[in-house]
């Protein structure tokens, strides 16, 4: 039985660990600390935790001021508010001056579940990757979340980290080497490539298993860093396999699928099919029900792969 952990849980635990090693780390939240899991840090380091109340614009502006004073602020709220409501503060006060703010947004994607469309960020990757100076990360599981959080403390500049609410399988071993900007070939294969990001890497692995039963070998690549994207690994996949299926828990517009298409179109035109949310809002429901209804499944990945191979 695979262990299942929500990436927001790992975020909360890792923050405490990071806070012990670096006094400059401060954490800000907007009255969601129990949901974003920053409350663990607030208990451990009450002086370095700032609850800004239900005010996401000021959450980001205050984080910018702390960063301008050599602090390393982690600013957390739900992804829909971080990327939407606070967008222009992130643009002008954080990205333009390239300040060292880590925007760690939880409850991203449709697996927010029962809260429904108003709280399901399905466009945050598109929004955040359009900003100069912004690094955009979307870890697949607990292990990669922890590894990437450690990396971003060392990196100086704005980072957007996309985290989820729902428990998801741990797919990596603890000693896996994960680096910002480097895609991960999780499994090899030469017939087709499945490029996935975030919690969809797990569905991609399921799809690979099924395809293998029919004698089709699928390469599975985890693009945890949407920006700067690893062009090399994508071009190589374009060259070596018959086509590419991108998979994301995000709108098919502007996210991973678009980023991969941009790289391929300019370097090695390759047939590409996108699995994602098809330009529509979500709705209330259980995470797995929603994944199924909106086509974020291994079955759908297999169908797209076959469209390419046939």
């Amino acid at each position, binding site marked *: 039985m695979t262990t299942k952990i929500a990436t927001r849980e790992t975020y909360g635990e890792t923050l405490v660990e990071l806070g012990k090693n670096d006094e400059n780390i401060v954490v800000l939240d907007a009255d969601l600390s129990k949901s974003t899991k920053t409350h663990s840090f607030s208990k451990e380091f009450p002086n370095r935790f700032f609850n800004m*109340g239900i005010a996401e*614009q*000021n959450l980001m*502006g205050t984080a910018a001021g702390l960063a301008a004073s050599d602090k390393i*602020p982690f600013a957390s709220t739900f992804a829909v508010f971080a990327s939407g409501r606070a967008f*222009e*503060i992130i643009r002008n006060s954080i990205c333009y001056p*390239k300040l060292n703010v880590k925007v760690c947004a939880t409850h991203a994607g449709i697996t927010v579940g029962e809260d429904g469309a108003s709280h399901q960020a399905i466009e945050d990757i598109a929004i955040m990757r359009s900003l100069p100076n912004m690094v955009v990360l979307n870890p697949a599981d607990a292990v990669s979340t922890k590894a990437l959080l450690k990396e971003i403390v060392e990196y100086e500049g704005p980072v957007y980290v996309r985290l989820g609410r729902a428990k998801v399988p741990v797919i990596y071993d603890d000693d896996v080497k994960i680096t910002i900007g480097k895609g991960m070939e999780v499994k090899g294969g030469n017939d087709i490539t499945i490029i996935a990001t975030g919690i969809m890497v797990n569905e991609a692995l399921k799809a690979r298993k099924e395809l293998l039963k029919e004698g089709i070998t699928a390469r599975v690549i985890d693009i945890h860093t949407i920006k700067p994207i690893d062009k090399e690994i994508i071009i190589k996949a374009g060259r070596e396999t018959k086509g590419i299926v991108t998979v994301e828990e995000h709108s098919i517009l502007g996210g991973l699928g678009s980023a991969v298409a941009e790289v391929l179109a300019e370097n090695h035109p390759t047939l590409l099919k996108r699995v994602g949310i098809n330009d529509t809002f979500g709705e209330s429901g259980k995470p797995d029900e929603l994944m199924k209804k909106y086509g974020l499944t291994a079955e759908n990945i297999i169908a797209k792969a076959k469209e390419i191979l046939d």
Partner: protein
Amino acid sequence: MNNRYPELNKVATQIRKDIIEMISAAGSGHPGGSLSAADILTVLYFEKMNIDPENLELRDRDKFVLSKGHAAPALYAALARRGYFSPDELVKLRQIGSMLQGHPDMKGIPGVEMSTGSLGQGFSSSIGMALASKLDKKNSRIYVLLGDGEINEGLVWEAAMAAAHYKLDNLTAILDFNGLQIDGKNEDVMNIKPIDEKWKSFGWNVIEIDGHNFEEIINGFNEAEGTKEKPTMVIAKTIKGKGVSFMENEASWHGVAPKDEEKERALEELGGAR
């Protein structure tokens, strides 16, 4: 009577001349709100703040944030005249390749502590700076200048609430209350009164001064510094376009550059070319 006032007056006049020259050379910019803030900036940079143009990273330095970033010419002139960079740079304002961007850019301009321009955001950043100063037990005070139109922004009130909540007594905000914004008088565009009661009810210490009277500005800042457990808002009554008769109290001079003949007249009123 402080014997520094004639000197401060000279500096403020110089800054005003610079503002006119810069905006005229650029062919665009915001003279009205730059001129109204000139005396306040003069006091901050030439009298009040603990700063050192030779040591930009001075640990306990005071910090100024121009939240009304469109008054950039006034800030740039103050910085240049205080020695942060050569006054020769000033006439390159807004030109391609120039260090002096249309709105303050902390990455490129020595002495600029925060990039601003989108209203409300500099004020919000100043909350973070004041929190950091307290965390590090620094003596550094944070000064932040807001426009009166700027306080229409919802973000300003989010930040105001937070500053009082965190008892940021190391924060002095100044409201450049000239009564006019782009589309006209404050009360016609969006009524902001009663200003003093709004800030008081948000938990701020409020001081009202004449923003063109050096003694009142200095006393206001000193009182703010002595106030504990609360941030202070200094409401500075000012005149938009102050110092140039045909610009004074004219909303139309918010964001328009003077033509050559207007520039000459303005400089003449300020005592001749710089």
